[in-house]
């Protein structure tokens, strides 16, 4: 039986990690913060995929590997599978989680009048909130990139959260 911890431990750790990198280390360099957070995710994904594929034979192709990520891997992490997988069969995969666990408690208030001028302090605060939220996504992107890399598939992963709490992860395979 796999050991468990309370979810608040993971939530707190991730929130604190993002906060440390965004506010303490690289307060004005979001690119560097993002890079570090993604690197942490990469490490975790690499090791987790190692553990979760120990007892099974190597995947026969890219699609099998992605399906593993969507089903078994996602279930281990989030107790549910990816809800929707789309591909153009030319190296691009879109993984859709309609209720992404790590963002389920994030509130992002969309500005009603869409005013993003500098004079509007509310809009600036909301932009900042959206920026912090997107920072959280670098971690799961890194996890997927690390997991796929360990399965022999180098790729780039990005996320789209225009439909919270749904999250779309885009994986672009190198070749």
């Amino acid at each position, binding site marked *: 039986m796999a050991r468990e*911890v*309370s979810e608040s431990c993971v939530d*707190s*750790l991730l929130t*604190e*990690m993002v906060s440390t990198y965004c506010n303490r280390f690289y307060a004005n360099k979001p690119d560097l913060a993002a890079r570090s957070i993604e690197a942490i995710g990469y490490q*975790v994904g690499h090791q987790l995929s190692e553990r979760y594929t120990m007892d099974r034979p190597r995947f026969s192709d890219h699609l099998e590997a992605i399906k593993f990520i969507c089903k078994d891997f996602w279930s281990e*992490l989030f107790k549910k599978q990816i809800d929707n997988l789309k591909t153009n069969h030319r190296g691009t995969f879109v993984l859709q989680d309609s209720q992404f666990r790590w963002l389920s408690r994030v509130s992002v208030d969309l500005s009603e009048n869409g005013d993003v001028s500098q004079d509007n302090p509310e809009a600036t605060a909301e932009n900042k909130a959206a920026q912090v939220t997107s920072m959280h996504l670098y971690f799961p992107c890194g996890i997927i990139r690390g997991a796929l890399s360990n399965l022999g598939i180098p790729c780039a992963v990005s996320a789209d959260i225009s439909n919270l709490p749904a999250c779309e992860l885009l994986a672009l395979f190198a070749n």
Partner: protein
Amino acid sequence: MAPAGPRSGDAIFASVERVNAELFTLTYGAIVRQLLTDLEEVEEVNKQLDQMGYNIGIRLIDEFLAKSNVSRCVDFKETAETIAKVSMKAEVTWIRDVLRGDDAFELQVKLLKQVPEEYPYKDDE
């Protein structure tokens, strides 16, 4: 003492959402690894980890108090006892591997009951 006694740690743990412990331990290890890459100085890394731990601790104690139904602790002895007996069953086992220079180190840490450093521990009350 309040009429309804404090809930046991097992009961609380059974009632909260739980996730895979490996995710937690590996994430922590990866964070430490990245901190070492970014900060390079072990002392600086420890300082940051301490700060992170402190911030996390403040949040966890809120959840603990909300869920465990303990009454307010009168002194620090009671606080320590409460934490020891009713603590959340979120044990993470870590052992520190101090092979410096080895890139692929494995970190495992054991989280014991937290002792507040600023105040003396009252033994005889």
